[in-house]
């Protein structure tokens, strides 16, 4: 369990500002959903948290220490799975285990990899298959198994279910909640990028809404520590529906504040 502090974070790509002045104080064990329209910079923020990009200004600190690059303390689940296609599902887990647990021998790694895959309910017949031979949902289960296998205190998930059908998505959301809840004392701090308001409401303890061009935090909602609502919360909770409408309203307001003018983006005056 690690605290994450994002202070005045900015990022520009080829002098185009993507993120500007992002501030976040995230308590250890929180499930943070970064919510916003496509192109608002939420995936960039996640890449910065992963150490895959360097900020133009500002800093990200984990337990007070600035992050210097990618590392095993921050597991990543990419939207396109991030699995190595030339390795079988179990080899993908085993290589991660080899990096994290240096004392395990090959047989132990293999056994543990299969255990982790079983934990995410991947059928055993698919353990030795290449990712290309698995369905999207199975691949994402494998990617989640790999991220949890190295037991990182921080987990970064970049729209992991965006390409999946509604039923698979719902099942995987439940799986992620179950895995997150599993060990209360060592609960992971999760950053989950999504553009789906319902997904954010289902998963998050904290929701950060990002505005557009450049991306910045325009709204924060916290349900309080440990309080992940889950899918059942939607059943007849008028408060939640009001919050849902409010969040959609904020996102729409941000989007409609921009118009494409002669090929360039310009921010219109809010009034």
């Amino acid at each position: 369990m690690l605290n994450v502090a994002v202070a005045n974070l900015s990022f520009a790509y080829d002098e185009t500002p993507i993120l500007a002045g992002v501030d976040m104080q995230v308590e250890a064990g929180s499930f943070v959903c970064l919510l916003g329209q496509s192109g608002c910079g939420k995936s960039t923020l996640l890449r910065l948290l992963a150490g895959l990009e360097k900020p133009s200004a500002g800093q990200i600190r984990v337990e007070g220490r600035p992050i210097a690059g990618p590392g095993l303390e921050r597991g990543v689940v990419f939207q396109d799975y991030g699995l190595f296609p030339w390795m079988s599902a179990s080899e993908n887990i085993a290589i991660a285990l080899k990096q994290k647990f240096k004392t395990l021998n090959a047989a132990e790694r293999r056994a543990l990899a299969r255990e982790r895959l079983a934990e995410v309910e991947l059928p055993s017949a698919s353990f030795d298959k290449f990712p290309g031979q698995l369905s999207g949902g199975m691949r994402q289960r494998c990617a989640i198994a790999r991220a949890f296998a190295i037991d990182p205190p921080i987990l970064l998930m970049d729209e992991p279910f965006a390409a999946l059908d509604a039923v698979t998505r719902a099942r995987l959301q439940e799986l992620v909640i179950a895995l997150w809840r599993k060990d209360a004392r060592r609960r992971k701090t999760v950053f989950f990028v999504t553009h789906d308001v319902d997904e954010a409401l289902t998963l998050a303890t904290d929701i950060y809404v990002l505005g557009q061009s450049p991306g910045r935090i325009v709204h924060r909602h916290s349900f309080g520590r440990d309080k992940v609502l889950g899918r059942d919360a939607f059943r007849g909770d008028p408060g939640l529906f009001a919050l849902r409408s409010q969040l959609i309203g904020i996102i729409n307001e941000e989007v409609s504040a921009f118009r494409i003018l002669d090929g360039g983006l310009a921010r219109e005056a809010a009034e």
Partner: protein
Amino acid sequence: MKIAKNLGVWLIGFGLVGGYWLLTDGLHVLDPFLFAGPSRISPAFMKSLGKLGEGFVSSLALLAPAYALAVMLGIGFGVLIGLAAPLRRIVTPYINAFSAVPVTLLTPFAIHIFSSFYTASVFVIFLGAFWPILGSTIAGVTTIDRRYLESAATLEIGGVEKMFRVVLPAAAPTILAGCSIALKFAFILLTVAEMFGTTSGMGYFVQYYSDFAKFDFVIAGFLFMAAILMAVMALFETFRRRMVAWTLNG
């Protein structure tokens, strides 16, 4: 079952032999001096089989070390150059310049530089195979999907582990395509390499009978080389398919 699977291959083969027979022995369309018909090639082939077999072993002694060296150095340097952008910028113009020089033109220089005809021959085959492998390896490494490298970075996979478990497998489809081209090119260069300093070999056999205008033996030699190349390429294809079984088309 296997014959049924390869029916197309057999049909084309029979078609080519039949067509050639028609043009030569059948209808005598082609000049019989240059284009010996199957009636002359078959006995020449059978008569030379022992010599061709010996030639195969002799050629292998040139081909195997030359190709192995080309694979090792081509992939080694290719990975190094592919991963180091500053180095790539410096050496690319020279790679382009030197790889364009026809290897056959370098034969006199190779004979002069190397201590024996054998090493000079090996060098000529090596150089011909080296450039396509180097080029394909550089291309393979520079076009690795960034996602794989980022995945490796988030798992702190580095050094030798990254090289052998991430970089080489990711670039393998392109590298193996280059190796396949290099293998065919090595066979072509075999004839050139065996023109000097050797008294046996498949290329030598063809060259020897060509000098005496015994084209039935020349064609027999060609056919033997073609059969060997087909067998070698089939073996290579089996290896390639195993290595890149994870790709969509295998």
